[in-house]
């Protein structure tokens, strides 16, 4: 049979996009969040250039509040896959002790994530950054291009997007402008899981259910990942079978009660799910256009 399956076509499209950025941009970087989407993106990038090493570095914007297991996983992966890793921390923010508990999720994310991302991109002079965004994630993403342009201030102008026809991506940019490239644009969450399964791609163990110490706050189940987490009066961590559908900063990422400890079990659970994955993210809980606004400000 010569007809490719849908996963094979998505894979080929992503590889094409990744090669195109490498061919047309001077200094690209792959933004690696350690989550499953950027894991798939990184895996595809290795496929694109095999047997060569990645011709660009990967950058992790470390908020200092990521789950610990994410960092352990990252460091092992860098060794196993022979990657050039840049870890960027907003040192000013860190020195001021910016954290999600005392400063709130909005301020914290703005400084330690968004602010740090811009800083990291500027510091290394990257003219293109791969992001793992998918169009099925959220309404405004559905209309974003694969090559999305940012002003020197990292702002996105949704009214000024270039048409993208066929497999042709116009990568010409003005001085100071940069590109965010989204090779996973046409993937859905289900595709990502199916692909991880098919290709046996390693992912952070937090995606699998396990007994972990958690507390309930505002209807969200949070992992007590270290002793920086201030416990409220009367609050004691309890051991629950829990897993995480998205990963990020442990104080901002709600877990799901689950016993799904294998990939097929996760996928089965997902098929029965009645809520979308972003629900676990504390920062998305305002109205529909919030992501678009954040993106215009330079948030991914």
């Amino acid at each position, binding site marked *: 049979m010569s007809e490719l399956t849908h996963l094979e076509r998505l894979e080929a*499209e992503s590889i094409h996009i990744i090669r195109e950025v490498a061919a047309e941009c001077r200094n690209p970087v792959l933004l690696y969040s350690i989550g499953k989407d950027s894991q798939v993106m990184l895996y595809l990038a290795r496929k694109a250039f095999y047997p060569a090493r990645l011709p660009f570095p990967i950058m992790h914007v470390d908020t200092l509040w990521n789950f610990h297991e994410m960092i352990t996983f990252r460091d092992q992966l860098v060794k196993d896959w022979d990657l050039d890793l840049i870890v960027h921390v907003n040192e000013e923010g860190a020195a001021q002790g910016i954290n999600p508990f005392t400063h709130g999720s909005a301020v914290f994310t703005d400084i330690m994530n968004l602010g740090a991302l811009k800083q990291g991109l500027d510091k290394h002079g990257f003219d293109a950054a791969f992001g793992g965004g998918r169009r099925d994630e959220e309404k405004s993403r559905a209309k974003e291009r694969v090559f999305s342009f940012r002003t020197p201030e990292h702002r996105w102008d949704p009214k000024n997007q*270039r048409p993208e026809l066929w*497999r042709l991506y116009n990568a010409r940019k003005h001085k100071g402008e940069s590109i965010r490239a989204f090779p996973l644009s046409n993937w*859905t969450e289900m595709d990502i899981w199916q692909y991880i399964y098919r290709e046996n791609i390693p992912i952070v163990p937090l995606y699998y259910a396990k007994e972990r110490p958690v507390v309930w706050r505002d209807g969200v189940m949070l992992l007590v990942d270290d002793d920086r987490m201030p416990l409220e009066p009367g609050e004691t961590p309890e051991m629950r079978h829990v897993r995480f559908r998205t990963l990020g900063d442990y104080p901002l990422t709600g877990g799901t009660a689950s016993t799904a400890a294998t990939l097929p079990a996760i996928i089965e659970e997902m098929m029965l799910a009645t809520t979308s994955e972003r629900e676990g993210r504390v920062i998305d809980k305002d109205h529909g256009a919030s992501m678009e*606004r954040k993106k215009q400000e330079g948030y991914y």
Partner: protein
Amino acid sequence: MAADSQPSTVIEFLDEQAEKSLLRFITCGSVDDGKSTLIGRLLYDSKLIFEDQLDTLRADSKTSGTQGGDIDFALLLDGLEAEREQGITIDVAYRFFATDKRRFIVADTPGHEQYTRNMATGASTAELAVLLVDARNGVLQQTRRHAFLCSLLGVRHLVLAVNKMDLVDYDHDRFRAIEAEFAEFARGLGYDAPISIPISALKGDNVLNPSPEMTWYRGPTLMGHLEQVEPRADLSERAFRLPVQWVNRPDHTFRGFAGTVTRGTIRPGDPIAVLPSGKTSTVARIVTMDGDLDRAVPGQAVTLTLADEIDISRGDILCRPEERPGVADQFEAKLVWMDDKSLMPQRPYLMKIGGISAGVQVTRIKHTVNVNTLEKRAARHLDLNEVGVVTLKLDRAIPFDPYMDDRHTGGFVIIDRLTNNTVGAGMIDFSLRRSSNIHWQAIDVNKEAHAQQKNQVPRMLWFTGLSGSGKSTIANLVEKKLFALGKHTYMLDGDNVRHGLNQDLGFTAEDRVENIRRVAEVGKLMVEAGLIVLVSFISPFRAERRLARDLLEDGEFIEVFIDTPVDVCAERDPKGLYKKARAGEIKNFTGIDSPYEVPEVPELHIETNDLDAEAAADKIVAYLLDH
């Protein structure tokens, strides 16, 4: 993964999923034909909407819905804030859903009048088009336009979805009339067996399930058709093409050529040719991270290694030696213009096709096509959302295929050099002059060859007029305008000639003649090199100007008389020369104590009392382009 401990149903499901194919289609129709509702219905019926999204949708339907508080599926589709307020989709949105048989990517494109460019974008990756019409209105002008545009972009499979059948009482005759009217129009558009399906997106009739209201309809449901159609069936039977995207050279032991197979298949051991160089070799390996393949098929992103070390770079096309693409630098193509600034013939743009970026000019607009009536019309420029048939000239020869044979080796975008925007999308029909890169024809590099290479008619523009008349100012403007049009020019004036070539000459009568003779001779050489030469000299005597004219061939010498009254010149006196002449400090000054012989029949007579420098320059450039 500990997959073996799982219930076999999930594993079976995953294995089934792995075999699913993908269909990319586009939906189009007029503003109120119900596209967004249809896609919302497809998402909803294939259970792609989560509870929380449904909650949001219910809430949104109450506040901004158009269905009186009922679920407004269209709201699922509108994305950007501004659009939501306007209640209209103004861009291409991509949506995803799956059934047990297939994964789908839908490009939702607007029916709004001015957004032809978005439709072209959505259609460029679509394998099939679902064209919606409102059963009450039938085939509208926009229906025709969308059918035409999809055909233009090479979409071969078309479904006419006659929507809102519930509002015409599921009337069979109404459906038949629309079907017949459309078939009549679509006949010339080259679709492979277009089919018509009566549906109601709102009620769900014939979308996923056969409609109990339309038992007279015996064809497939819309989804049934989308699941079955095989638009890519013949791709692997066609001539193999791999446009090289990336040369993979980790070290001296490995040299691979990476790219996506656009069509055809190839195996290790197969002979291969590289275009445009024409060099040949055989495929050694098809390398992927999953191991070497024994065959590469359409759509696959692979890396080939060859048996011989030959020079290959990004933009080259790998093919079978007996099935080579053309190589040319001039084409006839269809062009969809996508920018507010109109396309100007002769203006230099960039073209991106495959991995190639080349300089390009539109040499001629043969005609535009009225997308509503398909009528052809002559035009001097191409405006936003217009479609034209044009001829193009590139700054080098490239490998290509006609678009109808291969979207990826025949489709290109035009990029504005200044704004960097993608301003046009084009589809190559054929090359105008086959230039074989494999065996360059021995040609005489004569004046014609020089001129042809520069895509211009070489000329000598001879600006004559009093000192201070504005010759140099206007000549400078003319040169800038020509340069911006991509013309190759050079300016000869008193300053750059007097300081070098003519530094031995003074201002005696003999020296002045010799000055003019040398300038004319140098200018003639430049004309032979294919340039447009601008000469700006007072040159007061007819005989001198005649001397220059006689050196050139008929039509090459263009005398431009910059006619400014002497008192105006003297008043301007930019170099203070009139003052000195009047004071007797300079002798033989033209207009003061030496005559200026007015040209009798100049090609261009510019009276600066009537025209400012800018307008004068425009007039001269227009003359050049017209002659």
